[in-house]
């Protein structure tokens, strides 16, 4: 009888091309052929249970189709896939829907941008959010735009912040139940950071959490004078969500001005922190500050990865965080309690972490007029690109950057929309900057294996149930490694640097791997059988 009803419902249901209700994202694990949210699931593990492509056959992987963007800016997209359509963003602030069968565009939204956009590191965008029949896009002129998923037509377009004051959006929004969460960039321009929630139907702002508290709010006392007004702490990388705890997790960036701390004495809350918010109200539930009073521009804007594990004999809900500062953190995600902090990359700015996870800093790395040599440099040991966790191996995988620079202290003068930094940088030139893919025990941070790549990478990672980890390199390689051993099982030279996160999806019974390199979005699959050609 049930089957009959189902058949009946299917028969009368209108043809739906992009209905992605909250419940589908919540239950993303039940449809691994789709990729419905930035990190694949709210837990942000960027892990797929698909295993058609696996250790035994990955060496046959080949290009199925490529989409070329028209822009020469970095192509940082993490695509979404639902119901036969891939939704991507293209730099600077465009969105395109692609037919999964053929790679052909179905629609494009091309944004006209005003003159004078300022972004520290390229006019880039990391992807859209899908919710119901809407596509949600942040723009470098700091707007949030809702598009019709079928046509790309604009439904609403709201200003999130004033781009002329250095605010910009590069982050992929996160769709929750009846709300779109979006962060802000501009930590090098003296902005005051925040995280926002918007009504997906009307575009009305539901709440704003200021990552730099104002006068009278707890934490404001960690900023000397009026420095909080330009305190930075941007929120430019997509966070994670735990539906059971109903907590939203998000990393925050550097305090402003970068590199010079004298003008903002104190711990500078909630910069360089992981914040846990009530998604209905935006109220802070807990925070953990990785790096009080940062003077190295180590934004803690990485993807928080949620995992449940038995930790020291006790089942716990954890959040793990390979930080740009070179330390790997394990926290209790119910309370924010610090559990583990372990160095995973070359660094000289801290002698270690104390029992509470607070760094013991090396004063010789404080930028001064004569120049201080600092490892890692301000691009960090990690950055915005995603780590991945494989439940099969219990390992967390992180692309690691090992390079230093000399920082010379300079004066920072605030002018709205102008860069606000207290040092200049000179690269270390008598050595090759180094890059690695490292596999760490997720509970201890201990190194399991590593692959040295050439230059420090800007590629995210994805693990699959095929026993594989997919990555890219700055020299244009895309490759798959055995998730247990680090043996490279497949590689392909794309000819363009990878600044993007990989995803996987199913189309017509075949598993695909998608990863942008250069200006191309490459889609790889196993060869089709002769009968299907």
């Amino acid at each position: 009888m049930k089957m009959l009803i189902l058949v009946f419902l299917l028969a009368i249901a209108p043809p739906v091309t992009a209905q992605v209700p909250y419940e589908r994202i919540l239950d993303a694990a039940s449809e691994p052929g789709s990729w419905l949210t930035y990190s694949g699931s709210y837990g942000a593990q960027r892990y797929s249970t698909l295993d058609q492509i696996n250790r035994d056959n990955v060496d046959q992987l080949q290009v199925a189709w490529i989409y070329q963007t028209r822009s020469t800016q970095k192509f940082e997209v993490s695509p979404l896939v639902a119901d036969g359509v891939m939704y991507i963003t293209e730099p600077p602030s465009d969105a395109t829907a692609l037919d999964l069968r053929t790679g052909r565009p179905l629609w494009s939204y091309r944004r006209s941008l005003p003159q004078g956009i300022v972004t520290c590191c390229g006019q880039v965008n990391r992807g859209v959010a899908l919710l119901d029949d809407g596509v949600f896009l942040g723009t470098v002129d700091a707007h949030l735009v809702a598009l019709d998923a079928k046509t790309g037509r604009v439904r609403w377009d709201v200003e999130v912040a004033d781009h002329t004051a250095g605010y910009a959006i590069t982050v992929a929004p996160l769709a929750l139940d009846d709300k779109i969460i979006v962060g802000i960039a501009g930590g090098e321009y003296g902005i005051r950071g925040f995280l926002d929630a918007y009504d997906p139907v009307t575009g009305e702002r539901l709440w704003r959490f200021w990552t730099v508290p104002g006068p009278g709010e707890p934490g404001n006392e960690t900023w000397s004078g009026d420095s909080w007004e330009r305190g930075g702490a941007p929120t430019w990388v997509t966070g994670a969500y735990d539906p059971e705890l109903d907590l939203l997790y998000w990393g925050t960036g550097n305090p402003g001005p970068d590199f010079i701390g004298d003008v903002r004495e104190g711990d500078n809350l909630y910069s360089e922190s992981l914040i846990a918010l009530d998604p209905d109200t935006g109220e802070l539930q807990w925070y953990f500050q990785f790096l009080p009073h940062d003077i190295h521009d180590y934004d803690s804007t990485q993807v928080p990865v949620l995992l449940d594990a038995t930790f020291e004999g006790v089942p716990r809900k954890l959040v793990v965080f390979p930080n740009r500062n070179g330390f790997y953190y394990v926290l209790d995600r119910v309370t924010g309690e610090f559990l583990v902090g372990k160095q995973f990359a070359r660094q000289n700015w801290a002698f270690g972490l104390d029992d509470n996870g607070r760094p013991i800093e090396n004063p010789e790395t404080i930028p001064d007029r004569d120049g201080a040599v600092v490892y890692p440099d301000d691009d960090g040991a990690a950055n915005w690109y995603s780590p991945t966790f494989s439940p099969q191996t219990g390992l967390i995988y992180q692309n690691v950057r090992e390079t230093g620079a000399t920082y010379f202290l300079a004066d920072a003068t605030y002018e709205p929309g102008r860069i606000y930094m207290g040092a200049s940088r000179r690269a270390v030139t008598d050595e090759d900057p180094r890059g690695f893919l490292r596999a760490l025990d997720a509970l201890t941070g201990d190194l399991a294996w590593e692959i040295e790549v050439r230059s420090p990478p800007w590629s995210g990672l994805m693990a699959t149930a095929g026993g594989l980890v997919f990555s890219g390199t700055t020299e244009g390689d895309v490759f798959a490694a055995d998730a247990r051993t680090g043996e490279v099982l497949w590689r392909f030279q794309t000819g363009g640097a990878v600044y993007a996160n990989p995803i996987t999806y199913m189309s017509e019974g075949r598993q695909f791997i998608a990863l942008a390199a250069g200006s191309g979005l490459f889609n790889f699959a196993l060869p089709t059988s002769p009968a299907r050609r």
Partner: protein
Amino acid sequence: MLLVVMRRLLPLVCCLAVALAVGCAESETAEELAQGRLLFESQCGSCHGPTGGGGRGAVLAQPQLRRATDDQALENIIRRGIAGTEMPGSFLTPIQVSSIATYVKTLGRVEPEEIPGDAGRGAQMYASLDCQSCHSLGGQGGIIGPELDDIGARRNAAHLRQALLEPDAFVPTGFLLLRVVTGDLRVLDGVRVNEDAFSVQFRDLSGNLHSFWKDELETLDKLWQRSPMASYEERLSPAQTDDLVAYLVSLKGSP
């Protein structure tokens, strides 16, 4: 004393000389110059010399800059570097870039350096030492070492002298000697041409190109700060060294 007088007169001279080449910043303030000088010393001085006299980087203390043909070009180079050279891009604010550019333009007011030695004899020395087996001039010669057509515009005399006497201490940025052992246990030395995660390309000292997947190699050693050029300290008298340096400094390339 003469120097002091020169310094006082020089801004005017600069405006005449530089105006032809790069235009003259009319609103160059003492504060901007001081800021530019501070930044130049920290950011640029280690290669271009603390007063722009050159070194690893080009001599900037000259009235006309080869690549920075106008103000915009100068600022663009400071901001973005020069592709295919050792000049990197920078991480500076527009104001900082502008103040460095302002300071760099004043460097043209410095007197050119006096070089001992005879460039004509140096040219004969260049030929007799068989420098062209590794270096090229006017399209003739080897490809292992840096091209020398404009070496006199890119390096100052002191740097060239030291590079001849102590080659390992003056290896150009990006120049890397490799030693590989192949799967069949051949040992090959060469200069890296390119490398990615899985492959490496290099030229051996005869100029032959080799390309390997890294998993075809037993070992791959990177010999940082090592030059295939042997020191000339024992092989040249001080006077001969002066002549060779004078010749190299005279190689300015086409403007």
